[in-house]
């Protein structure tokens, strides 16, 4: 029974496809998967927006939306209807074609990334051998759409925001890749399904997820930081820092195109969280061996939502960095740490089983963290202060 439940979507797909002639079958089964992804993730987007508004509200001791539908659950739909019915304003001097294409390119590029994410056992659209490479190739294409949006709007704020966004995304793509490469090195494959399979074993009740190794934890933390920057989330949301740049690259967008940007941003967050789940958190595998009867896709999506909540939590807590600090942080802290992490992962592999590798790897990483952190604070000339009082 639990196996059926686990594979219910796969079986459903097979059943649906079996009605068709054999020639069409592979084509239609891919199409089905695409339709499901295009349907599912925007729905998840609506839910995440609700969750974010509610969660931020509670973090700030507010109620959050609670008027439309039970617990305000229908609020995103109301917002969607509103943005659909709003006037679509294009600035007079804008480059109309590029202005129109930018949100589409963004959403398409982001959707492509989902193709290789395994969302459950046997639940992946295309099981590509170079899946991770494909994912990053698609991620790199989103930068261009952001540039298109900023440049075509003919607005200082938009252009500045776009330049910032692109510079930031390029800078953080490097550590993002580097922290993933450590996993690739250990798993020995670029295929995301195989990476999950490599983590899907247990010693006792505990799983062999990569996050439960020193290099995996460090890599995961670096991955989280870089992914927040990559998706322009707080505290790295400078490209749309409203106190400086109004709304960044989509200042001049309105109505449905604005909604598309919003959607693209959240989808990027989902896909990057999904990738993080796959790389470090064991993808669709259960957190304890006695829980393996729970369908795999439940695990994947609950991990995804967990990481979204962490994104929201961090957004509710931290102020944002400045551009130069952001760049310094990427190049002087995150990148060296990921490079070192790569080295540590290799060491981990060569040291073989045993407790020594735990100690050695943890010590190296901790030391590097402390030293780099201290240097960063000294270079940035900041730190806690003591205050004196007048006599």
């Amino acid at each position, binding site marked *: 029974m639990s196996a059926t439940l686990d594979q219910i979507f796969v079986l459903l797909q097979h059943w649906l496809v079996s009605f068709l002639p054999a020639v069409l079958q592979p084509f239609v089964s891919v199409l089905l998967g695409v339709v499901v992804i295009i349907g599912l993730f925007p729905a998840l987007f609506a839910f995440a927006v609700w969750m974010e508004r509610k969660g931020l509200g509670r*973090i700030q*001791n507010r109620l959050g939306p609670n008027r439309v539908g039970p617990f305000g659950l229908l609020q995103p739909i109301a917002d969607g209807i509103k943005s659909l019915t709003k006037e679509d304003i294009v600035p007079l001097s804008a480059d109309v074609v590029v202005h129109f294409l930018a949100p589409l390119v963004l959403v398409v590029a982001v959707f492509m990334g989902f193709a290789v994410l395994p969302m459950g056992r046997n639940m992946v659209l295309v099981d590509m051998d170079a899946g991770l490479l494909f994912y990053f190739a698609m991620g790199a294409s989103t930068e261009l759409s952001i540039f298109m949006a900023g440049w075509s709007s003919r607005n200082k704020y938009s252009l500045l925001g776009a330049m910032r966004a692109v510079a930031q995304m390029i800078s953080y793509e490097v550590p993002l890749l580097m922290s993933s490469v450590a996993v690739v090195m250990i798993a020995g494959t670029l295929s995301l399904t195989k990476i999950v399979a490599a983590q899907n074993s247990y010693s006792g009740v505990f799983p062999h997820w990569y996050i439960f190794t020193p290099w995996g934890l460090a890599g995961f933390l670096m991955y989280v930081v870089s992914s927040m920057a990559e998706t322009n989330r707080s505290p790295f949301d400078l490209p749309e820092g409203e106190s400086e740049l109004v709304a960044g690259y989509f200042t001049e967008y309105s109505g449905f195109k604005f909604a598309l940007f919003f959607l693209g941003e959240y989808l990027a967050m989902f896909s990057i969280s999904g990738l993080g789940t796959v790389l470090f958190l064991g993808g669709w595998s259960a957190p304890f061996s006695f829980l393996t009867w729970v369908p795999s896709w439940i695990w994947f999506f609950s991990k995804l939502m967990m990481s979204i909540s962490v994104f929201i*939590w961090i957004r*509710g807590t931290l102020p944002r960095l400045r551009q130069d600090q952001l760049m310094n942080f990427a190049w002087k802290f995150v990148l060296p740490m990921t490079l070192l992490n790569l080295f540590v992962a290799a060491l981990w592999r060569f040291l073989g089983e045993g407790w020594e590798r735990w100690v050695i790897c943890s010590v190296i990483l901790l030391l590097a963290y402390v030293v780099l*952190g201290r240097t960063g*604070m000294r270079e940035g000339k900041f730190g806690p202060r003591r205050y004196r009082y007048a006599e």
Partner: protein
Amino acid sequence: MLGEGILKGLWETAKNFTGSYVSADRLTTVEYPEQRIAPIEATRDFPFLVFDEENRDGGDPVWEAGLRCVACQICEKECPPKCIYIERSKDKKLDYLGKAQYYPARFDIDISVCMSCQICVEVCPFDAIKMDTEFELSTTDRFGGLLLDREQLAKPNEYYHKIHPAEAAGVDAHLAEEKVKADAKAKAAAEAKLAAEAKAAADAAAKATGEGA
């Protein structure tokens, strides 16, 4: 160490997140149209004119006769944004002390200008103008709708007792005291005019019963 402060901050927000579900101290939101906070004694919004309700026409008190305002125009003069417009009446009528006084033929307050400062209340020597707690005064007519005239402003003393019980009790005691003084004066004067005295006594009895109730 780097990240320490951030972790502390995250802990703090997590505490607030859960706290907003469990402690009313943290979640202070009042969802206005459904939930309301009862207005407290000191609340002030816009002024209204108090009238005494002893003159009853059937069941309803007649506001015009009972208005305490004597159109002295002090409030009009003192009002900081000058939002009170008073026209004094040509004739006089008797007030509760039995003195013949003018009354306002026109008394308008433009509440789109009024800044709820309460100075008109403080300067009024007759306790005729008081602060209301009513704040839901929005209207679609932004000129006429926000210019309140005598009839809209007049509210019975009962109402005043309802919204500011302690303050109203003090005012009534003060008025009663003045009334007693005035009565004593009137009695002395009444020796001369017996007919007038009888009338005043009847008035006082009516007043006393009205006050007692």
